[in-house]
């Protein structure tokens, strides 16, 4: 991978990786850090990564970095308090998109990440399997559960706790 290919990957994919990470972890500063970490890793390994696989490399790296951070954060009480504070802002939206956004935020992290990979980037089950190291049936189950949850939420948000 050349410098030009690396730089074009910044232009092409940094926004998309950022959206994926930001939507997954809902923290701008952490999301920015993760995107920078991913590109640092890419640059360190740029000689081993071909231009065709840059996007997959970045998303794989982002996914696993997030999983690590989420595990660390879950050990922290402070992080839990933030989550509760964020959740307390619910029920102030009326627009469908915002209700859907709220519903997405309530999904378990892995379901949300898998769904984002599917919807935002249009990855197939097999590609998501490779990115996340989950098996295909797990990927399908996560997507299925996430869709049913979202459908129920936007259908009658007050009924879903």
């Amino acid at each position, binding site marked *: 991978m050349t410098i030009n290919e690396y730089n074009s990957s910044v232009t092409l994919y940094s926004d998309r990786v950022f959206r994926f990470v930001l939507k997954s972890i809902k923290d701008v500063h952490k999301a920015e850090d993760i995107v920078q970490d991913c*590109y640092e890793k890419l640059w360190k390994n740029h000689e081993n990564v071909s231009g065709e696989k840059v996007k997959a490399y970045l998303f794989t790296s982002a996914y696993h970095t997030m999983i690590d951070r989420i595990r660390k954060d879950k050990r922290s009480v402070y992080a839990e308090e933030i989550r509760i504070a964020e959740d307390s802002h619910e029920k102030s939206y009326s627009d469908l998109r915002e209700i859907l956004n709220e519903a997405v935020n309530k999904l378990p992290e892995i379901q949300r990440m898998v769904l984002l990979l599917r919807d935002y980037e249009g990855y197939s089950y097999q590609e998501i399997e490779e990115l996340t190291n989950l098996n295909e049936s797990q990927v399908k189950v996560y997507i299925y559960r996430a869709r049913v949850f979202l459908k129920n939420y936007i259908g009658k948000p007050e009924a879903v706790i």
Partner: protein
Amino acid sequence: MFEIEKREEMKINRNNYESYFIDYLEGKLDVSLVDDFIEFLTSNPDLKEELSMFEPVSVEPENAVFGKKELLFKEKFDLESEFNHAAVANTEGDLSDTEKDAFDKYIAAHPEKKEELALYSQTKLVPDENIVFSKKNRLYKKTLAKTITLWGSRVAAVLVLAISVFLFIQRNESKNTISQEVATIEEKQPEKTTSILPENINQQQNTKLAEVKPGSGIKAERQKTPAKNIAGKPTEIQEIQNTTTQQEIARQPEETFAMINPKMASVELHQANLELETMYITIPENPNEERLLVDRVIEKTGIEKISLNKIAKAGLNLVTSISNEKFTYQTDKQGNVTEVNFDSRLLAFSIPTTSTRSNEVSGE
């Protein structure tokens, strides 16, 4: 068994005979009880008559049919789990052709499910294009050539700034010096007018006609004032009257034009008799190949890519990197700088540039 044992204990009598009657009519009366039952009937002829009244009573089954069976039939997709699976698979595009047909038929037959299916299609997440990663500049790696051009642009930006500051200062200084220079010119002018001889004046005017400038008229006017001053002195009045050339000095521009016009009219044209030669113009076969050297130089050096906007951006990038990205700027789709931001722990502000303001105003 329990009943039989009970009945064995409790023989048929007028209080419990109904159950014996029903068993008898349905043919379920136990064989062991038949003798007692007959004995009871013979001893109670009124009840025997009552039993005979029951015998012909029988209900014929009607051929009535429940016509809404289809409402009760259950299909595969009536199971919530099956419907959800199919709806999700439909949203994901995972249904095979046959499954898709079956599911579409089911939806067509159950309009109430359409809304539910529509909700599934609304669960498709769409990325917000407005969310962008603002720190791309930190990620880009620069090649040697780019580094040189970057620093070149930065130096250019600094030079442009320095030159503009220098010119500004210079301009302020020159305003002060100009007023002094004017004063010195006024003092020297009388000397010049007295030293110019009338004969020389005509020659000079003829030769330097092409050099006559708008300012020369002012000089002529300025020369009038010393003449008036001279006329004010009685000793010099005669000299001035004798030499009419002094008056010519005061009227320089008008007289010189009057002398030249006749000369210009006397020019003879000899070329009119010459035969015109045929002129050939060669048109290149491919006009695109005819390019000026300047264009090629511009293309090779990439000078055309350098613009004031790029130089300005290079300067802003330099400030950004020096300030450890506390100072940043935003650009629009055309690459024009729209906003300048400063964000530190103590102070943060954002200044929209004038162009965006005008755009906003025009947009409103």
